[in-house]
């Protein structure tokens, strides 16, 4: 498919002709940006252009060349008026700056956040492991709970704690295994994980 896309009429004609002749139209394989998930030609409108461009350059160098060569950059403004271009650029710069600040804040927050893995004794020698604090690392409780369940082949569910926040309760004594999984699979620094123990008093039914 050419960069000049919109020959919708002609393309529609081709599809109709294909239908008449009884053969089918092959689906287009579209590359999506590994950073912002849009087709790379739309990355320029997002707040992560820099990261998007780097990703494209290392993963799809030819596409990167097509989109970001100096000729491509020159011609892409198309029919837009200079005034409209300037306004759009200004707005985008603002958006990107905001996003950068947001990411900085988030990084700082991550550094100071802790995931707590708590081993809780349910009955004599029966334990559950409760994991909390993963939201600071952009992890989703429901998803991670499911993945723990699969990984450790055990019951794993999202529960509410006393403060109304979420946590994952895994059936079994898996404190070390979960720590390892958080580090290996989710890329969390070990410094940001704390293992604690909470044993219930004997006889204190729970």
């Amino acid at each position, binding site marked *: *498919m*050419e*960069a000049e*896309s*919109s020959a*919708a*009429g002609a*393309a*529609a004609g*081709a*599809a*109709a002709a*294909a*239908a008449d002749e009884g053969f*089918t*139209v092959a*689906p*287009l*394989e*579209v590359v*999506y940006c590994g950073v*912002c*998930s*849009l*087709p790379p*030609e*739309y990355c320029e*409108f*997002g707040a992560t252009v820099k990261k998007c461009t780097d990703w494209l350059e290392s993963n799809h160098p030819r596409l990167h060349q097509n989109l970001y060569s100096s000729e491509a950059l020159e*011609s*892409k*403004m*198309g*029919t*837009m*008026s200079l005034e*409209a271009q300037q306004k*759009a650029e200004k*707005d*985008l710069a603002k958006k990107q700056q905001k996003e950068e600040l947001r990411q900085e804040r988030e990084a700082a927050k991550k550094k100071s956040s802790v995931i707590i893995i708590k081993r809780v004794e349910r009955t004599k020698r029966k334990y559950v492991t409760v994991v909390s604090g993963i939201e600071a690392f952009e992890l*989703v409780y429901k*998803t991670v709970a499911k993945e723990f369940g699969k990984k450790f082949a055990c019951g794993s569910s999202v529960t509410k704690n006393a403060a109304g926040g979420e946590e994952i309760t895994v059936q079994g004594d898996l404190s070390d295994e979960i720590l390892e999984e958080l580090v290996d699979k989710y890329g969390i620094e070990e410094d940001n994980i704390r293992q604690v123990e909470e044993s219930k008093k004997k006889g204190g039914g729970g």
Partner: protein
Amino acid sequence: MFKKPVSSSGKTKIKSSVQRNIRQKICEQFPLLEPVIDDVLPKKAQLDLIKAPEKISLYALDNQVLFFQHHNDAIMPHLRVVHKYPQCFPTVQVDRGAIRFILGGAQLMCPGLTSPGAKLPPPEGNLPEGTVVAINAEGKEHACMIGVLKMSTEDIKKLNKGNGVENCHYLGDGLWKMDSE
């Protein structure tokens, strides 16, 4: 429709009789899709229904949403489907200036469809009000929005003001992000 992230309350399997009806409705709405409908929606595949808030139904295959529908209105394709089969959907083009507004979820105004960078079908290819259209953009290869015409394409040219296309689904919205997570 999907400015916010989509929260779904689980999925249910769609009965094969209902699935047939959906297929048929899709083919009626998008005749150009009929030649490839078996690739898009294989006859034997199990289609799932995912209910989203505000009476929106999502039709999914292997956890990927392919079509969606508000109540009993027209069925609309997910942008990913349009990207694969661009020639199978009625298409109009906006100018470059309109792209950033679309990606912000704004409604599509007529001037963005009539300026020099935009493209509408010729008079003999007039698309009536209510048609589900894919929106391409000046200088871009892939569609960035799915919408419903609020007036015929000839009226858009004539009136050239107001809301021309209702923005139902756009790149980066809640529906788009739903299964890339």
